[in-house]
């Protein structure tokens, strides 16, 4: 588990994360005042000088695997479901976030001088023992410490590294008695989310991200959990997203689903929850057929119905836990169940990111769910 030491130095950084992952996440009362100031700063003047996602662009690989420093926020988000030969199940997450502290680029005359902040989260869900191991890292962008590059592909925060090529990446990250050492191989081409990769998140122009996914990455490798090594294989999912501003103030957070079915199809869905309790009509999704054909889903194409909840003993936050997804184009209802309830990230910002099972009669599989913006009230 995350060590007791407060490794998170500045509460202000939380605010960047709020903007990156979801509004209002993990703030407590003492942060409220500075939260609003920083929100104002981040959503107003602070975004000047950065590029914005206004219209679709053409994606090029491997160049777009690398960083886009002209945008404020960016992430490389791997999640996956892994099994040992005996069938013992694990979930994992490995994410590197990039956040620009200032829009101008810095001449690297000093190895420490940088405007880029990198941070990374790593988590392993040990389903059999119902334990959850999560860690985080922070560093400034500097070749010697943290960064991202396209040729050859590499993103790293100190000794946590993902690198290789577009379609073949090795992830190595360890903390304490936990370690990921995985080889990921793309079995399908990259999927451009939203409108040819432009994913609108709120009504204001420019409040959008560029977003692509690699929905099926065959994965083999080793996990170390509590000092024990397991050889595993399974499937992973990569989400790549960069933006300057995403959510609007009336939005509260999102529920995101990345599901991989036994029939080699995949489904991505997210719904943006508004503060008034309704669902934003910009919520959307994507179907990926076994042969790679895709179909964009609009908010009218699906409905997400929570079936239960779980209250974290750690934070007291009540998270939805279990859903029915009504996917109209496929004409199925998928029952999504967390592989274990506690997959709450104990990081500086609290969110829930966990392995799930999918049962849809003919459509069965596994996946990952991300919940943000809960527990603010």
């Amino acid at each position, binding site marked *: 588990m995350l060590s007791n030491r407060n490794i998170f130095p*500045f509460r202000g950084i939380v605010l960047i994360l709020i903007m990156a992952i979801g509004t209002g996440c993990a703030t407590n009362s003492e942060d409220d005042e500075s939260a609003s100031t920083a929100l104002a*700063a981040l959503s107003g003047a602070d975004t000047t000088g950065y590029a914005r996602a206004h219209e679709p662009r053409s994606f090029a690989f491997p160049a777009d695997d690398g960083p886009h420093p002209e945008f404020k926020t960016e992430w490389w988000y791997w999640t996956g479901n892994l099994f040992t030969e005996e069938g013992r199940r694990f979930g994992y997450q490995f994410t590197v976030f990039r956040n620009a502290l200032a829009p101008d680029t810095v001449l690297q005359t*000093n190895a420490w001088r940088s405007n880029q902040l990198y941070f990374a989260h790593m988590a392993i869900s040990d389903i059999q023992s119902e334990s959850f191991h999560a860690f985080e890292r922070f560093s400034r962008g500097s070749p010697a410490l943290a960064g991202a590059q396209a040729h050859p592909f590499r993103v790293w925060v100190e000794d946590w590294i993902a690198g290789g090529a577009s379609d073949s990446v090795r992830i190595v990250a360890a903390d304490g008695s936990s370690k990921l050492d995985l080889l990921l191989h793309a079995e399908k081409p990259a999927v451009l989310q939203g409108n040819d990769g432009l994913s609108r998140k709120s009504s204001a122009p420019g409040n959008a991200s560029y977003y692509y996914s690699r929905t099926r990455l065959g994965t083999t490798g080793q996990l170390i959990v509590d000092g024990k090594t397991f050889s595993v294989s399974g499937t992973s999912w990569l989400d790549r997203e960069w933006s300057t501003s995403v959510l609007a103030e009336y939005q509260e957070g999102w529920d995101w689903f990345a599901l991989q079915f036994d029939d080699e199809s995949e489904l991505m869905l997210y719904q943006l929850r508004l503060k008034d309790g309704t669902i934003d009509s910009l919520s959307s999704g994507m179907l990926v057929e076994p042969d790679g054909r895709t179909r964009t889903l609009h908010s009218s194409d699906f409905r997400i119905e929570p079936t239960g909840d779980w209250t974290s003993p750690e934070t007291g936050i009540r998270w939805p836990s279990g859903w029915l997804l009504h996917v109209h184009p496929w004409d199925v209802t998928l029952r999504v169940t967390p592989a274990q309830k506690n997959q709450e990230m104990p990081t500086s910002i609290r969110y829930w990111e966990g392995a799930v099972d999918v049962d849809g009669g003919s459509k069965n599989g596994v996946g990952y769910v991300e919940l943000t913006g809960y527990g603010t009230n």
Partner: protein
Amino acid sequence: MNRALLRSGLRYHRRHPLQAALLVLGVALGVAVVVGIDIANVSADRSFRSSTNSLTGAATHQIIGNAQGIPDSVFFRLRSEEGVRPSAPVIEGIVQTDREGGRTLRLLGIDPFSEAPFRSYVAEGVDFTVLQRLLTQPHTILLSADLAKDLQLNAGDTLALTRPPLRFAAVVAGILQPEEEFTRRSLGGMLVTDIASAQEMLGMQGYLSRIDLLLDGAATHDAPEIEAMLPAGLLLQRPESRSSAIMSMTDAFSLNLTALSLLALIVGMFLIYDTVSFSVVRRREQFGILRAIGASRKQIAAMVLTETAVLATVGSAAGLILGILLGYGALNMVSQTISDLYTTMTVTDVTVSAGSLAKGIFLGIGASLLAAMAPAREAMSSNPAGVMRRMGLEDRLQHILPALTMTGLGLLVLSSLLLLLPHKRVDLSFASVLLFLLGVSLLIPATLRIVMRRSLPLLRFLFGTIGAMAARSISRALSRTTVAIAALMIAVSVIVGVNTMIGSFRHTVVNWLSTTLGADVFVTIPFTGAGQNEGTDVALEQRILSHPDVSRTATARTLSLISDRYGMHQLVAVSDDIASERPYKWTRDGAENTWEALRNGAVLLSEPFAYRNGIPAEPGQSVSLHTDSGLRQFPVAGIYLDYSSDKGTVLIDDAVYRRYWSDRKISSVAAFLHPSANPDRVAEELRAQLGTEGLFVVQSNRGLRDAALDIFDRTFTITIALQLLAVIVAFTGVFSTLMALQLERSREIGTLRATGMSRSQMIRYILTETGVLGIWSGLLALPVGLIMALILIFVINLRSFGWTLQLHVQPVQLLEAFLVAVLAALLAGLYPAIRYGRVKPSEALRVE
């Protein structure tokens, strides 16, 4: 305690305000000195701890380098390849501001993302916009609210920072508001900046001062694993070893101060004793009457003690206030000395601890009551019938004289034992000085009696009958005169002892400077604080050599180091000996071959280094030094006398140094001039040529010598100030004692006047008596003071600092001290003499 009695006692003091005032003053001065010095010591210690604690934070270990620091690639490797956590890079240096008369501050460069486990104050209350500025805008700083107030800065303001030759306009990114008192205090002298800015502002691009580690159970690695990762030349050590090395240096210094302040208190006790007993003696009649009307012995004693306690409380309270003021002044001197000699102190807050105050009150009231014990007993013995008779105190003294004398001798023996025992403890040495003084004081009554008897003929010869009368009078009142003489003797002997010690020290240093500073002009990089190892390019030497009057040069590289083995010490690499005739304590191969031995890889040790590390003056010794290529043994070719630093110095040949250390910089260049050249003019020209930006300090031989002696004198300012205080306390004591001695004799004087003694005879009688007391005190003070000087020079200085000094007695000083004693005594006799001269015999005898 009967209230009526207490009121009667206090009424007495109201009628005799001078005595009450003297007692209050005596207590106040004694308490003030002790409290003042204690405050200075405690504050210096706290300030020092604050300075270091704010820097080390929670680190359990530190990786340190040699001269330039640690390449930051070492940190990157530990972090990104070896995954060593928690770990934090740190850069620190001293910078000068343009505020508050060029106040120096510590600049601490940190990586905010590594900091939280180490120095939480950076994380406290810093919000995102501040962090953003700190990281993205070069040369932005954080400082505490207190410091911001001192420097009159607000967020967004600019502060000019200098670190020669660099100069930056730093911008205040934010104000730190630590809630915890200790942290607040620690940040009092510090600016925090991002590591990138710190490297740029301190001219340390690519280097770190150290890497902090927290190697507890949750850490990724343990100490041996880390050590194995380090390249040669880098060391893993505990932060305490650094601060304790510095503390052990300053300990000796603060102990010296404490000892002097105790000396002042002892002298103060004499004063209290005198004043209290005087007031009792004068009131024998009153006590007799009180006893006659029914007051019990116990009640009388309780009255005396209560009175004393009341006055002592007033005195102690005044002493506390005076002491706190004194503490402010003393702290400045103490921290100046610590900064001069050991390490730059950026925090100099006065800490008035409850402990210091309690100590003062306890000593003030306790000492007063102790001093009042004997007089109280005397008061108890006042019986209604016998009040007019000469009191039993003299008889009792006669009775216990042999015991006093034996105790005195015993104390002298004990004192010598403490000195002669082979140990390095400075506190025991000081104890022996105090025992010595006490022992001598106890011997005074016995010796005084003999001396008076022997000197009777002489006094009769000199002053006739009046001289003989004076001598007898002194012997008769031994119980009082002893205390007066002891107080005066101790005060004067402290003057003699401390002055002789400082004089000898100075004399030794002057001699040493003249033989050691052989070159004519010295060029050094500016001193930005001890412990800073900045250097300059070797090109400096060529620039100096190009001056037409310079015949040859020698360079020195001076490093201030701390090692587990030798503590805080200096490593000096010299290209040639600049001493015209280096004074050696011991050489292995003879003085003329020693420099050759150095070229072959041997080292020289300064005397304090050899003393502190117990390296004997005999062949076959070696020292092990952490070079950039690992730990190496260097044979010792000799021990030389060195008074420049009590830290201890290892002198090594420049070529040998460059072979084992990768450092290429130099710290100073010594230039030898052609015989016809004028050193002051050459220094002036070099200054103009080199020093437009304050890059270098150019000094002629004389200039450097003066600067060295300046620091020397500054170091002893506080010693001299304390000694003056002790003397003031003593004089007050002597004055009151002698005055009391005379005033209580009004009846005797009346009789004498009635039987025909003239007014001028009377004045002569009294002045002869006090003059004899003064002469005797002065005579006694000279040997006692000289013995004290010997102990200070040959025992305490050696044990504190490892220096051998040459005794240098200045007869004029001795004569002065002697005259001071006589004059003080005569002055004290003047008022009673004039007063008795005016007394009509009939008045003086009226009571009879």
